[in-house]
């Protein structure tokens, strides 16, 4: 039970990261690797500020701003310098490694004895997992509400159309460079925000903690959509958040089955491959089922 609770807590903490990946991958149709560097960036900024005696709320907000700026760099590289999106993300990600080391000053910062959002909630009498669930859920709900509103504004419409049909939206007079930059910023801002919370839960930031972010994010997005649907924006946002929780539960189960935690990255990659194949596989199965039903019907007749 405790394992499931822990997985649930992790899932909610990472849900906003998955939503950030959803924005770039699904809304903008870009596989943005900035996520990897950005995840460390958010955690690094927060832990550095908290150890310097900064207020946890301010430190969390600073992570959001850091993420927005990282997204801005990738967005500018892609739109203004015409560097392919994938490469632009890789460039920012690589550059961020050094930036993160500069910010953190060393490769690992512990904040175990400092006051963080999580410890504040624990002082209120919550267990660590419950503190994570409360803070993760609160942040996720706020982010989903904000994005639901945003993607239903005029500006939100033009962002969605930019990822969906760039020729059409250009013909409607929208500067797609601006849409792309804005979307990439938003996605990375959320990723940094999520990692800020994760680092406060874990009690540390580590230079390599961002490795694998994009795979975990994509796995959450796709598992969520396959299981919970993608009929509307609101449906998708909720599905992705739940997908993040489901991902953690699957990982927890796999670890329980005797896999080593060193195998985590391999497991997440395999999980993403399976998730990516699921929609096609489902179609295949339903086709086979339909065929066998038809055959069965004809023999009966």
């Amino acid at each position, binding site marked *: 039970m405790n394992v499931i609770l822990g997985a649930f807590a992790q899932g909610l903490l990472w849900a906003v990261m998955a939503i950030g990946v959803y924005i770039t991958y699904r809304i903008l149709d870009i596989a943005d690797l900035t996520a990897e560097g950005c995840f460390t960036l958010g955690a690094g900024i927060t832990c550095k500020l908290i150890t310097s005696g900064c207020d946890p709320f301010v430190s969390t907000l600073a992570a959001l701003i850091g993420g927005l700026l990282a997204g801005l760099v990738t967005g500018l590289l892609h739109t203004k310098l015409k560097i392919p999106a994938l490469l632009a993300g890789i460039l920012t990600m690589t550059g961020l490694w050094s930036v993160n080391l500069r910010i953190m000053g060393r490769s690992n910062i512990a904040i175990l004895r400092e006051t963080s959002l999580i410890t504040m909630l624990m002082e209120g009498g919550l267990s660590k997992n419950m503190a994570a669930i409360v803070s993760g859920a609160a942040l996720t709900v706020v982010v989903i509400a904000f994005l639901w509103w*945003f993607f*239903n*504004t*005029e*500006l*939100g*419409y*033009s962002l*969605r*159309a930019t990822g*969906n*049909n760039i*020729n*059409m*939206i*250009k*013909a*409607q*007079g*929208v*500067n*797609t460079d601006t849409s792309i930059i804005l979307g990439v910023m938003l996605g990375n801002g959320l990723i940094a925000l999520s990692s800020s919370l994760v680092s406060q839960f874990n009690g540390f930031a580590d230079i390599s903690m961002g490795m694998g972010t994009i795979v975990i994010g994509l796995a959450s997005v796709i598992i969520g959509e396959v299981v919970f649907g993608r009929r509307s924006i609101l449906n998708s946002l909720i599905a992705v958040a739940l997908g993040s929780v489901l991902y953690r539960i699957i990982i927890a189960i796999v670890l329980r089955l005797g896999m080593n935690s060193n195998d985590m990255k391999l497991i997440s990659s395999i999980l993403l491959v399976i998730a990516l194949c699921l929609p096609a596989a489902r179609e295949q199965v339903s086709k086979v089922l339909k065929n066998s039903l038809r055959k069965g019907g004809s023999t009966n007749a």
Partner: protein
Amino acid sequence: MLKLNNVHQKFEIGTVNEKHVLCGIDLHINEGDFVTIIGSNGAGKSTMLNAITGTNMITEGTIIIDGNDVTKEPEYKRAKYIGRVFQDPRMGTASDMSIEENLAIAYRRGKPRTLKWGISHKEREEYKNLLAELDLGLDTRLKDKTRFLSGGQRQALTLLMASFHHPKLLLLDEHTAALDPKTAARVLELTVKLVEENKLTAMMVTHNMRDALRIGNRLIMLHKGRIILDISGEEKKKLNVPDLLEMFKKASGEEMNNDRMQLS
């Protein structure tokens, strides 16, 4: 309304693949003109429309829309003057967005996008009425994603979107070519109706010679990046398809060669 002065368009300049697609187009289109455009494969019909919209920046020459020199303006800035319908029905709408969302996007063509709600109740009513006029059963499907529409429905929707706010120019690039004959006829009928009712200035590329003669008040023929024929008014009304083929032969010294061209 529209002036093209000595417009040249080259692609892949400086490579062995360099192509000179538009070779000095001079064209003046007056307000209210409905121009049909015909020509062989690779004559530059679509390239000319893409030059006007700014999809491709021209290599030489100037483009003036409604008195404004737009030669250097990017596509999204010119969009406020231009309504467009593409050949591929999938091109005209965002397929993962609903009918009403697509309409609302087009309703704000050329305007800055703000943080106001993307669509208002009043608009929704207006869209419903406009869609009901199309008589394609779309007025009850405002929330449906456009990916679920047929090609004809999508082109009709795109036409409606393109004609919002009386664009200075309506550009139609073989917009019925991908449709079955019956649907194509219906969409064409709707096109003529919209252009006449809104008194739009329009340019329509077509592969159907009869349509090119029957519709509009002016016809131009492109060949190898040049305008080789420009007929309007009474003269155009009197023409028939054999005349047109004969004129093409005389002007170009070649037989008309368009694998999609419908002669009758």
